[in-house]
Each structure stands twice: as structure tokens, then as C-alpha cells.
């Protein structure tokens, strides 16, 4: 047989939907580190990050047959599924903390930083870190609020004290500039 071309994202997800364990292993190899890292950054603990990876893969399987390659890249889809679950987990924490306060019990102070704070102190991997330097502080802050905090442009604008149009521009420019910077990094390799 001829050498096979790399498997498409759609084909991989179809195999995953058919419960093929090797496909699950491939997906794990491709995405687990980023989902785990997202959990560390957003949820602040190894245990919560591991739970996030597990929950994400279960959710990916349950929705695998709905993945549509024409509507977006698999990597982006996986990341946003994971991020959505992380935001849900953070909301649950807030609700739990509030209900404890309502009951008059001393709340267990959540010492873990909130996503916005965590995002600001996120540890960057080496190569991508230099690409991140292509962003201005304002662009990066806007992107981190939108990405980690799940904030709308209006919310970013309010938090940063800037017009909404400026918030939109900062997020968009940050993403495009990061892409260009990474392309340059790759060319220099």
C-alpha cells in the first residue's frame, strides 16, 4: 500500500465517534497538554486540571458526531469546549461560595486566583512566549480577559475602561498579530 496521507480532523473525529480507542489516544496525545494547562491556569490545581481533561474528553466524545470540519478547526473546537467547561467549573465555585455565605457558614476562602488574575500570571512556554511579546500589554490583557474569562467585548471594554470598538480591535489584532509572530518564529526555526 502507498504511504497514507495524514488523517484529516474529520476522519479522526469519525473514528472517535465510532469508539475507536486508538483515535481517542491520538486525540489525547494532541490536546491533553493544552487542556491540562488550561485547567492549571484557570482552575489553579492539578486535581481540577485533571478533572477538566477527563470531562473535556467525555464531552468531546458525546458531541463527536456533531463536529463539522467546514465550520472550524478541530484544535480550536477542542480548546473552546475545554474553556467552556473550565468557565462552568468556576461559576459553580462562585455559586457554592455564595450559598455558603447565605447559610451563614464561614466560607472556605478560595485562595485560588480567578481566571483574570491567573491569566495575567500564566506561565508561557518558551517559543510561544517570544511570539506573545509581539502583543502590546493592552492587546494581551484584552485577549486574556476574553479567552480565560469568557468576557464579551462589552465586558472587556468596561473592565479596561475603553470604548467597545477599541476592545474589539485589541482582541482581533492580538489574535492576528500572534499568528503572524508565530509564523515568523516557524520561519526562523
Amino acid at each position, binding site marked *: *500500500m*502507498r504511504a497514507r496521507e495524514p488523517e484529516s480532523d*474529520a*476522519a479522526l473525529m*469519525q*473514528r472517535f465517534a*465510532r*469508539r475507536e*480507542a486508538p483515535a*481517542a*489516544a491520538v486525540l*489525547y496525545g494532541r490536546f*491533553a*497538554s*493544552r487542556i*491540562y*494547562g*488550561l485547567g*492549571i491556569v*484557570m482552575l489553579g490545581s492539578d486535581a481540577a*486540571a*485533571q478533572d477538566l*481533561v*477527563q470531562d473535556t*474528553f*467525555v464531552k468531546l*466524545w*458525546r458531541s463527536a458526531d456533531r463536529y463539522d470540519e467546514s*465550520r*472550524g*478547526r478541530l*484544535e*480550536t473546537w477542542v*480548546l*473552546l469546549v475545554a474553556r*467552556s467547561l473550565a468557565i462552568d467549573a468556576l461559576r459553580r465555585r462562585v455559586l457554592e461560595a455564595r450559598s455558603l455565605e447565605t447559610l451563614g457558614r464561614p466560607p472556605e476562602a478560595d485562595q485560588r486566583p480567578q481566571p483574570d488574575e491567573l*491569566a495575567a500570571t*500564566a506561565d*508561557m*512556554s518558551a517559543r*510561544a512566549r517570544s*511570539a*506573545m511579546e509581539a502583543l502590546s500589554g493592552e492587546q494581551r490583557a484584552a*485577549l*486574556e480577559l*476574553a*479567552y*480565560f474569562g*469568557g468576557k*464579551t*467585548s462589552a465586558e472587556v471594554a468596561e473592565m479596561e475602561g475603553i470604548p467597545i470598538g477599541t476592545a*474589539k480591535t485589541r*482582541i*482581533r489584532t*492580538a*489574535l492576528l*498579530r*500572534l*499568528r503572524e509572530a*508565530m509564523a515568523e518564529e516557524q520561519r526562523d526555526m
Partner: protein
Amino acid sequence: MTCDEVRELLPEHLLGTLDGPEDLEVRRHLRGCAGCRTEMAALSEGVEWFARAAHDRTPPPELHDRVLTTLAQEWRDTDAEHPDARRTRWVGRAAAVVAIAAVLAWGLTQTHRANVASADAESYRTVLNTLGGKEFRVGTLASHVAHPFEGSVVLYDSHQGQSWGIVLVRAPGVSGKATVTLSSSDGSGTTVDAGTLEFQPDGDAATWLVTSSDLTPFDHVTITAEDGTMLASADIEVA
């Protein structure tokens, strides 16, 4: 919405923070605008690089087994909850194959050749869309021996890793078995064993295969007798 308006909203669409009606508008626009889709792809790459930069950490090794074990349990529980689901899917696929084989066999009897190309194009596309496939391709066998040897081959190229092929033959006077081989004309020498024909007393024979492999490169079929004699061949073309 204009392209400028859509592009302003693309980051929020991508990050999932756009309100329903606006999000729907953006989706509609994207379906019909290659330029905005290109911009969307660029922004997606930006998100992916940001993710690599901001949160790429090696998970503990034991997490791998934990996740795969969890998935195995999930699959088992789904089977327990819907015991017939998988079987139904397979029965459905098998039924589709049998139905198409029956249609082809009927066509073979009536006209002695498969001519899917003559089918109504719209119906053809409807069938294809329903099955989720790329194309049907067909070939009419040409005899390489002195006696009658006719038949056809149909290949179905799937988008879903479920391609299949059917070979139907009528060769009165031929007995025993013959091997069906798919090959590619691209010079790679790649071949696939597509099964064995076992001739009935009246000379009819059929075989079929279902595979997760990509059959698209294969555009030629040969049928070879047990003694190595080539009995028939066909070029396979889009129906």
C-alpha cells in the same frame, strides 16, 4: 451584514461570547463568504498559538490511562443504555448495501450492465447526501477470455471512513473461484484484495467489501482465476 461588520464580530464568534441572533448572522455570512472564512481561519490560528503559549503543560502520565478508561466506561454504559444502537447502525448499513446490490443485480439481469450514470442526477445526489458519501464510481467488466464474462463493479467512496465496493458477475460456464483486485493507475503499484468470487452453477458470482480505508485512489479492477488467468477487468469511473 457587511464583511466589515462580520469581521469585527469574528473574535467573539470564535470565542463563543456572541449573542444568539448576531452569532447566527455571522454563521450565515461565513457560509457564503470565502474572504471572511479566511479571516476566521487566521483568527483560529491565533487562538491556537495563544493556547500553546499560555497553557501548554505536560499532564501527569497516569492521566492518560484515567481518561481512556473513563471513555471505555462511557462507551460501555452507552451500550448498556441503548443496547440496539450499534447493531441498528450496522444493520442499517448492511441493509443499504444489500438494497443497492439488489438494484444492481436487477439492472444486471435486465441490461447486463450497470449504468448508474443514467440515473437521474438529482436522485443520485440525494442518495449520496443521505449516505454521507463522496461519490459512486462504476466500471463495466470487459472479458479477457473467449467465453461470455460480463458484470460490473461499484465503489462507494465515503466521507465517514466507511467505503465499500461490490462486484457482480455473470459468466456462464465458469466455475470455481476468482480473485478480485483493485489497483491504482497512478503507478504506485498499490493494490487491494477486494474479495473472492465463488461462481454458482449458472455462472453468477458476487463479492463485496466494506473498509475504513480510502478507496479513492483505486480506479481499476481485475478478476483473476485460480490458475492466474485474467478473466476480466474494468476501469472505474465516477458515475
